């Protein structure tokens, strides 16, 4: 029977939740890396036992952790525990994210817009998102703050920036959102290994069609009232993008305000907010088997980051947007004031597919019937930053 493994990053550690295919009884392990902010944990599609985790701290900076046994044990790539340290420089620098400034890379930009409108140098702060390759367990991408994309091809031991993104030319117009200037979304096209989508708050969405060498903004159709030119090429606060692997040219976006879709790989976007009670939010995801079924969790507003009316509701559209139904069975419908952050929803590939999300209040909810009903797997974790799920044989 199939199993699922849910990988939860919280403000104070990581947790791994495991169940069989019924998804009724759960085994909870953790906290792993207790006390650290775990921004993201994700497994390799090519090797489910290979997990990557971003461990960060305002005191001690960035750490990358790797597991080769499905989360039972972890190590910093290049410095496995128990290995006698050798004299001389370390073999690897798995937490060394240095922006490219080499002459051969062209013209990586060195400044972006700061909160007061002045230009500010790029400064590495943390890894927001880790996206393992679809085919090669040792290859993994990292989306970082200040916004840039890095790649490791040696299992996370060493990282190199793909500088064409910052070198695109619009960098001086990028600016940090409230959470920092983060590259938070990385989507790999399963049918075209040259194509990658990324999203940055607050710059917008970008696409490469040559494996990261060059990038183009894909923000036509986005409209953001809070920037000087609401229809600008860049500067939009994209919160998250989702794709169903069976239709890689169709993208769904939760923007700061507005839920959007693109049917041409991001070249053009149209709004699909429809009858949502509010179209502000962070997460968006797509059903595993029905590519026109999508999920969002509306949040009241950008100044009140909690669900509206004290009700925790996932909204589902079975029509690719515009027509939304509230999913409430098993979710609190009074006195609930939590948020659901951008990487905190995931969907397994069982039939019916499971939907999972984590809240700022530390609950992780699961639905084993594509959202019709919900149950909390855990109720009292630290605030949840990210949720990923692996469907295992």
């Amino acid at each position, binding site marked *: 029977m199939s199993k699922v493994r849910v990988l939860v990053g919280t403000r104070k550690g990581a947790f791994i939740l495991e169940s069989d295919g019924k998804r009724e009884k759960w085994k909870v392990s953790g906290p792993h890396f207790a006390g*650290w902010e775990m921004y993201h944990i994700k497994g390799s599609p090519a090797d489910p036992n290979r997990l990557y985790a971003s461990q960060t701290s*305002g*005191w*001690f900076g960035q750490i990358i952790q790797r597991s080769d046994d499905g989360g039972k044990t972890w190590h*910093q790539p290049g410095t496995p525990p128990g290995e006698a*340290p050798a004299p*001389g420089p370390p073999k690897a620098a798995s*937490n*060394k994210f*240095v922006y490219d400034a080499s002459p051969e890379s062209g013209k990586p930009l060195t400044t972006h817009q700061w909160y007061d409108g002045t230009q500010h140098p790029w400064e590495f702060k943390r890894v927001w998102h880790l996206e393992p390759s679809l085919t090669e367990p040792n290859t993994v991408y990292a989306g970082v703050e200040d916004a840039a994309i890095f790649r490791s091809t040696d299992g996370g031991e060493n990282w190199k920036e793909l500088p064409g993104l910052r070198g695109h030319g619009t960098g001086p117009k990028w600016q940090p959102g409230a959470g920092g200037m983060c590259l938070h979304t990385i989507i790999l096209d399963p049918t075209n290994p040259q194509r990658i989508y990324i999203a940055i708050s607050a710059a917008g969405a970008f696409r490469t069609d040559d494996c990261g060498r060059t990038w183009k903004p894909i923000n036509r159709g986005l409209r953001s009232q809070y920037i000087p030119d609401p229809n600008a090429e860049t500067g939009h606060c994209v919160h998250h993008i989702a794709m169903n692997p069976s239709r890689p040219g169709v993208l769904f976006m939760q923007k700061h305000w507005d839920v959007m879709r693109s049917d041409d790989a991001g070249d053009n976007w149209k709004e699909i907010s429809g009858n949502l009670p509010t179209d502000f939010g962070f997460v968006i995801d797509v059903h595993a088997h029905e590519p026109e079924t999508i999920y969002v969790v509306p949040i009241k507003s950008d100044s009140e980051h909690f669900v509206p009316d004290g009700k925790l509701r996932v909204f589902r559209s079975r029509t690719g947007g515009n027509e939304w139904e509230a999913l409430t069975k098993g979710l609190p419908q009074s006195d609930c004031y939590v948020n659901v952050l951008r990487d905190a929803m995931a969907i397994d590939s069982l039939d019916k597919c499971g939907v999972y999300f984590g809240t700022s209040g530390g609950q992780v909810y699961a639905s084993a019937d594509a959202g019709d009903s919900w149950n909390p797997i855990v109720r009292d974790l630290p605030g949840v930053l990210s949720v990923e799920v692996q469907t295992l044989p």
Partner: protein
Amino acid sequence: MIRVILPQHLRTLAHVGSEVQVEVGGPVTLRSVLDAIEARYPMLRGTIRDHVTQQRRPFLRFFACEEDLSHESPDTPLPDAVASGKEPFLIIGAIAGG
């Protein structure tokens, strides 16, 4: 032998107890002690000083012999009591965040 006391999270990363000991060849300075720690425990590289600038991470401070050495030049000799191993060199995480 230089005695170094690490903050709890760095002990966990390095799989050590509260106090570690490192050998320093030549003058005992902030730089040479931190170099020795990073050579002995490479998993700590980047957690005490920035990889590139070698600047102290802002929420960490260095103490020894009841003195705050955080703003000393990296090449300033540490107190004799640290160099002799009588007193430890302390790396402290700032108490911040409520």
